[in-house]
């Protein structure tokens, strides 16, 4: 729809042809909007945990829609059904569409079988954000964690997803790691599928 000049009228949003997703807006426009999202949510909560939960909820709604959109547009209405498949879908396809690049790394947790980590040196949403001292470990990446959870949940891989700052040697800013802990049923299913 965007970019084709005259806007056409469609009775139903689903009748509208999907655009290719190449349209862009300035990073500032997004940063301003995201900052308002965070500031608004700050007025609605009493503590950091709640704030992260609310940002995650907002992200979840984005993730659920991204999954639907990408499966329909890029994958011919198919979606990944295996654990590694869906992880690589998040790490590559989703990241590329949303953030313009593949995520820096995707690793398996060393201590727990059910944990995976997606790390990003400079997460797009954290680019212009500095956390005040009194807000401790708060990470706006909770929004992205929510997106990841939304995608995974929609694809049938329920998981607990959280965002953490991880200090890096020789770097001034810590990187953000999105920690994915899959539900038991997911691992049981994977084991059964062999």
């Amino acid at each position: 729809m965007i970019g084709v000049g005259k806007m056409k009228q469609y009775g139903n949003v689903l009748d509208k042809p999907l655009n290719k997703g190449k349209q862009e807006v300035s990073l500032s426009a997004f940063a301003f909007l995201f900052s308002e999202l965070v500031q608004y949510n700050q007025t609605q909560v009493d503590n950091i945990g709640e704030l992260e939960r609310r940002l995650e909820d907002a992200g979840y709604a984005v993730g659920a829609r991204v999954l639907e959109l990408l499966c329909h547009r890029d994958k011919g209405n198919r979606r990944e059904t295996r654990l590694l498949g869906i992880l690589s879908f998040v790490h590559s396809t989703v990241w590329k569409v949303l953030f313009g690049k593949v995520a820096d790394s995707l690793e398996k947790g060393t201590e727990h079988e059910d944990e995976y980590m997606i790390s990003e040196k400079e997460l797009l949403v954290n680019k212009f954000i500095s956390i005040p001292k009194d807000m401790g470990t708060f990470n706006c990446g909770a929004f992205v964690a929510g997106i990841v959870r939304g995608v995974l949940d929609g694809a049938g891989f329920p998981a607990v997803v959280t965002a953490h700052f991880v200090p890096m040697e020789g770097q001034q800013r810590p990187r953000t790691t999105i920690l994915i802990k899959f539900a038991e049923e997911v691992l049981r299913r994977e084991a059964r599928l062999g």
Partner: protein
Amino acid sequence: MARVAPRTGDAIFANVERVNAELFTLTYGAVVRQLLTDLEEVEEVNKQLDQMGYNIGIRLIDEFLAKSNVSRCNDFRETTDVIAKVGFKMFLGVTASVTNWDADGTCCSIVLEDNPLVDFVELPDNCQGLYYCNILSGVIRGALDMVSMKTEVTWLRDVLRGDDVFELQVKLLKHVPEEYPYKDDE
């Protein structure tokens, strides 16, 4: 200091960092949905979106001035033209047009055909009173507030409500004289 020529919206947009419009669209959708859940009343959501826009506008004007090299506009006509041609382009990647001037040049319409905020959006029956893009009117009001112009910005047409384009009416209420609350020697 040498005067630098103002840059076109296209030139600026080509040179700034950009993100996928879908991330922006869906995030804005998440904001609106969150407000609808929290505030329940559509009227309140309109107000909050306008407030958020205002907050953005008062900060965005700095970036706008810094990147566009636009100098003082001679009149309100020039101001709205710059908003439509440079402002919308450099932030949202779309251009708008200005029409419907009144006789004394203080009220006009900014018309948007493309609007990245509303992709995938349809207003459900219980949200018919919602001005989905109300954040935009807030942005314009906030930005102009910072350059001494008090304005009133209202939606006249909205594609989500069945119109063919988005039309924002911008009305100049008054020029606020610049005041320096501090003394020179401080």
